[in-house]
């Protein structure tokens, strides 16, 4: 059985106070489930040419899914990610150019690279938030693959709008149970966490 936008709306509207838009609850439920599943599945490629020290991010960019490949006259370079302040310290004169070694998130619309490398071709894969259920989108990957978890996520998201809340704890527990099952089902599609020191190696603040 597939969960569709219409069937989900119908179920939710019976539970919700009239003033709350079911679309809002669905969007919140989808967001919650996407975060909890930590999927590494929805991706696209971005490519272009560097402008000074900048590489553009496309609309909807959520996270970097692959290394950034830079090429210039046959030379290939894969810059490593560092913090923004690291790059500014490493390459203080942005007007000077060189072979790019590092990149950092500069803003929601772009990366910065160092050394500055104008006119290099770039290519990378990025993750984005998939389109959600809507009147014109009756089914999505979530609604087809993990419909029970999506339904439970929407129910949990609707808790703050419920007419009565006697079953809040039970509904939350149901969601957690279904979430665990969904994670096992799609475990190969979630973000890899393979860095050996990633959990323990948060840099302590420098001491004066």
């Amino acid at each position: 059985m597939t969960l569709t936008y219409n069937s989900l709306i119908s179920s939710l509207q019976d539970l919700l106070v009239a003033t709350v838009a079911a679309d809002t609850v669905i969007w919140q439920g989808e967001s919650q489930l996407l975060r909890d599943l930590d999927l590494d599945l929805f991706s696209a490629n971005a490519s272009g040419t560097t402008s000074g020290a900048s590489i553009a991010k496309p609309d909807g960019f959520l996270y970097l899914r692959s290394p950034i490949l830079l090429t210039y006259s046959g030379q290939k370079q894969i810059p490593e990610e560092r913090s923004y302040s690291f790059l500014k310290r490493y390459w203080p004169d942005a007007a000077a150019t060189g072979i790019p070694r590092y990149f950092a998130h500069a803003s929601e619309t772009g990366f910065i690279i160092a050394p500055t490398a104008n006119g290099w071709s770039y290519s990378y894969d990025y993750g984005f938030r998939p389109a959600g259920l809507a009147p014109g989108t009756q089914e999505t990957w979530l609604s087809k693959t993990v419909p029970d978890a999506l339904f439970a996520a929407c129910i949990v998201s609707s808790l703050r709008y419920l007419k009565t809340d006697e079953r809040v704890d039970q509904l939350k527990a149901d969601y957690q149970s279904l979430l665990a099952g969904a994670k096992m089902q799609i475990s190969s599609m979630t973000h890899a966490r393979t860095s050996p020191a990633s959990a323990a190696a948060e840099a302590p603040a420098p001491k004066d």
Partner: protein
Amino acid sequence: MATSGTYADRSENAGLVEEAFERCGILASKLTADHLNSASRSLHFALSSWQAQDFASVFRKAEYSLTLVPNQANQTVPGEVLHISKMVLVVTPGAEIPVEPMSSAQYLAIPNKTATGMVSRVWHDRGRTPRLMCDLVPSTAWVLKYQAITMFQDVGGLANNPDITSSIEDALAAELAFRLSVKFAPDRSVGLKTLAQEAFMEAKRFSRERTYTRFRIVR
């Protein structure tokens, strides 16, 4: 796969700093400008310490040629010169005579410091303004050739290479890691200090001059 066929891999200061921080358990992706500032200072002090331990003498030898200024007691020596090991005075092309080093006390003991003549002994005054003091004020613009141990070059920017050979990069990374651990990962300091000392000794052994050594028994 074929081997690279190249020998150009050298660590920039930034790469050295990243390696050192990772030995402290801090991922390079978590480093900030403050970490880099701190590491640059530590790198400067690490190299300074190596100079004090005479490690520079292994691979920081350079030859200098100084044309002596006639009738002048003080002769200028570049600031990077730490220690002069060998000196010869070029009297005429092809005719060189050895010049001996002397101590400050020996120089002080010279009764007449304004007498002119051919230089045969020199005191290297290694104060804040380094200079060469000759036993006799040179009467001619002879050329003094000398072999010297020099300082490491300044750390410079993070995109610069450290002024070392590739064979001792690991020793410098180990030394820097120990120094950074004192500030950022004190629980690792003891272990990293041991590793730094071992790497230092390995580098020193590797950097020795490999020439024949002859021993003669004198009866």
